[in-house]
């Protein structure tokens, strides 16, 4: 087989693969991007403006088909009658876990990956996060600090466009923000009450999100239809399909090959270098091989680690596959905010409130390490409350024309400690549709995460009380790991090749021309939504790789 060669190969075209493609091509490398899934045509595949009455099940989805083909993916809120096609077929893409310890692995295989239907929330880390492992001894020390990544956060933010409010908080650094989306009147009420009750300790702000509030880099401002996970024909939220991949294409040095399922990074043990990748064409089954001087794995945390496990060269540390993390979610509370009954919103804001971490920022909490944030917001209930109302007829219809009271909710997202026993391995029996060994995942929440979830319910209720809310109800959900879709770790960055898989530049200790820049590289999880950190690390690693190539050091 004649092997076609490029300067660089990027595996994956999602949020990090797109950034690798943009940076490597703009810095002069002829780059091949291999995407396991098929192409997307926004004009045909985006469905954000398809109303429910044009759907066969008016939004309920084809329950029987989903039960057959997407028994895992269906747990994700966005995998519905509109967007279900952006999630994988679980039968074609199996993985295994102990039934008593479920892990919900939510996946998207298409050009753009999960950046098509991601949550779009973006928050910088601070040194409180980068120093956490060193200070409390869980995991190994990050080989970088905030100063190393801060300019790359700015670089990424300026390109993709982030709307948000500057707060000046040390634990949640400000970024390069476009004007923030507004809070509604009940959220403003809660924000002001919290200011009075908690001083500067608990601060409510609008979510920082990768959705444009004004024209930016050739893309239009949001038009507030509200369902970004179904696509966006005006490209107002960031995804790789509309931003980074076109930037790469503009250089004339990008080749994008969809339907290319990579099965192995080819490794030359003599030279200690990768020479390319082997793949299979998803449609024809044809075996493919491509050569490159440098390989970027951006296939998603667990897919990149699966590839390294299949390629058998990156595990001198014994840490490959270990320290799998996700964020805990679902401790919190809701309550009714009295008043403002003559006020409502117009349009659908695809964003909520954010309340940055306040636990273990200054004083140490007695029950747990690290911390959590809250997301959520206030809304007036609509026709859905008719189900629990008595009566029918014109009276019911008129009553439902008027929205119900304002309900404010706080929904917590917590940090997960790195633990080597939370891990993935290759399953000895199960293979995917293309004959590639599947992953076996073992991951559970432990005491620190559980205690944090309990505390979320307590502090959320405190804040609702301080806001004058009534009918406060608390909750502590038991969501399985994976479902937050912030799975990360399993090929961590570190200072020591004996205890980590990647170095400070996302380079494999065991193969310096292999870079892993998606969530696999994370040495801890913090509590912030992670995508912006993956993007910044990818841009930084790509610049480093090209610099090294130019110096002849790769």
């Amino acid at each position, binding site marked *: 087989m004649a092997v076609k060669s490029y300067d660089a190969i990027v595996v994956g075209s999602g949020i990090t693969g797109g950034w690798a493609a943009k940076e490597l091509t703009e810095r002069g490398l002829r780059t091949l991007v291999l995407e396991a899934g098929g192409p997307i045509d926004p004009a045909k595949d985006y469905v954000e403006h398809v109303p*429910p009455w044009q759907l066969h099940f008016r939004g*309920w989805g084809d*329950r029987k088909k989903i039960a057959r083909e997407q028994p895992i993916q269906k747990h994700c809120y966005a995998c519905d009658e509109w967007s279900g096609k952006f999630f994988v077929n679980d039968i074609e893409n199996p993985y295994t876990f102990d039934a008593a310890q479920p892990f919900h692995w939510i996946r998207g295989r298409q050009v753009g990956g999960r950046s098509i239907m991601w949550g779009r929330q973006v928050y910088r880390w601070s040194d409180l996060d980068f120093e956490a492992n060193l200070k409390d001894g869980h995991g190994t020390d990050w080989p970088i600090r905030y100063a190393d990544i801060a300019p790359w956060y700015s670089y990424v933010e300026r390109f993709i466009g982030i709307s948000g409010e500057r707060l000046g908080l040390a634990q949640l650094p400000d970024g390069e923000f476009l004007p923030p989306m507004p809070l509604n009147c009940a959220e403003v009420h809660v924000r002001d009450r919290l200011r009075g009750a908690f001083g500067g300790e608990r601060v409510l702000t609008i979510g920082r999100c990768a959705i444009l509030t004004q024209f930016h880099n050739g893309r239009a401002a949001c*038009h507030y239809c509200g369902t970004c996970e179904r696509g966006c024909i005006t490209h107002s939220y960031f995804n790789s399909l509309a931003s980074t991949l076109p930037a790469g294409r503009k250089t004339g040095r990008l080749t994008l090959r969809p339907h290319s399922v990579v099965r192995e990074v080819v490794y030359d043990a003599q030279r200690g270098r990768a020479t390319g990748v082997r793949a299979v064409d998803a449609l024809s089954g044809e075996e493919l091989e491509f050569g490159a001087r440098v390989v970027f794995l951006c296939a998603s945390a667990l897919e990149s680690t699966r590839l390294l496990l299949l390629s058998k060269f990156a595990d001198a540390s014994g840490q490959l596959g270990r320290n799998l993390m996700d964020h805990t979610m679902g401790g919190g509370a809701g309550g009714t905010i009295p008043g403002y009954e003559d006020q409502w919103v117009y349009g*659908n804001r695809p964003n909520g409130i954010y309340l940055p971490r306040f636990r273990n920022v200054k004083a140490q909490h007695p029950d747990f390490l690290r911390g959590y944030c809250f997301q959520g917001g206030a809304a007036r209930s609509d026709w859905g409350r008719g*189900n629990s109302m008595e009566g*029918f007829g014109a009276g019911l219809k008129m009553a439902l024309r008027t929205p119900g009271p304002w309900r404010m909710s706080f929904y917590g997202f917590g940090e997960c400690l790195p633990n080597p026993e939370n891990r993935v391995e290759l399953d000895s029996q199960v293979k995917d549709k293309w004959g590639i060994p599947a992953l076996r995942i073992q991951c559970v929440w432990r005491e620190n995460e559980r205690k944090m979830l309990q505390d979320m319910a307590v502090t959320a209720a405190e804040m609702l009380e301080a806001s004058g809310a009534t009918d406060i109800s608390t909750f502590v959900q038991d969501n399985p790991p994976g479902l937050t879709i912030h799975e990360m770790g399993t090929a961590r960055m570190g200072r020591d090749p004996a205890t980590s898989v990647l170095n400070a530049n996302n380079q494999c200790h065991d193969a310096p021309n292999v870079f892993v820049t998606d969530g696999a590289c994370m040495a801890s999880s913090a509590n912030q939504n992670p995508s912006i950190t993956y993007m910044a690390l990818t841009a930084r690693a790509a610049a480093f790789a090209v610099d090294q190539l130019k110096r002849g050091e790769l």
Partner: protein
Amino acid sequence: MLLAMGGAAALPAALPRIHIQVRGRPLHALGAHQAETVATIAELIIPATNTPGAREAQVPEFIDVILAEWYEDADKERFLAGLADVDERSRSLTGKPFIEAGEAVQVAVLKGMEAEAIALREADKQAPTHFWHRIKSLTLYGYYNSEPGNLQELKRPVLPGRFDPCLELGAARPGAL
């Protein structure tokens, strides 16, 4: 009509219509009498007022899709048995099937069922969902996710074009109290 709101000028003129249309689909789970019974109940739950009601919103067609393709067989049978029970109740009062019994009797039948459903739920939280709660929730869902339910009743455009965080209620939804 969907594109009449401001701010949507940059959007394509035609919405993608790639999904199966429900309109004009023959019924698969409900016979003609059953469909008319469902339509009569749904219209009593959400009647036409100054906006269309459940019948015009094609709620019976939606319910037929759910019965034929979404429900498990046992749930479908339970629903159809509930429908037959509506006729039984009507016959015991007037000797006529529900759809011929006149509105006063129809309302009385539904009120009787509602009282029973509420009592059942209060007595046993685990009890299977009563027919009344099923048809009411199907009707509300189908109606408020229909074209007239969204655009005329809820005044909820597909393309708002802007976000206003704090608007007088009457301006956000004309006709709301």
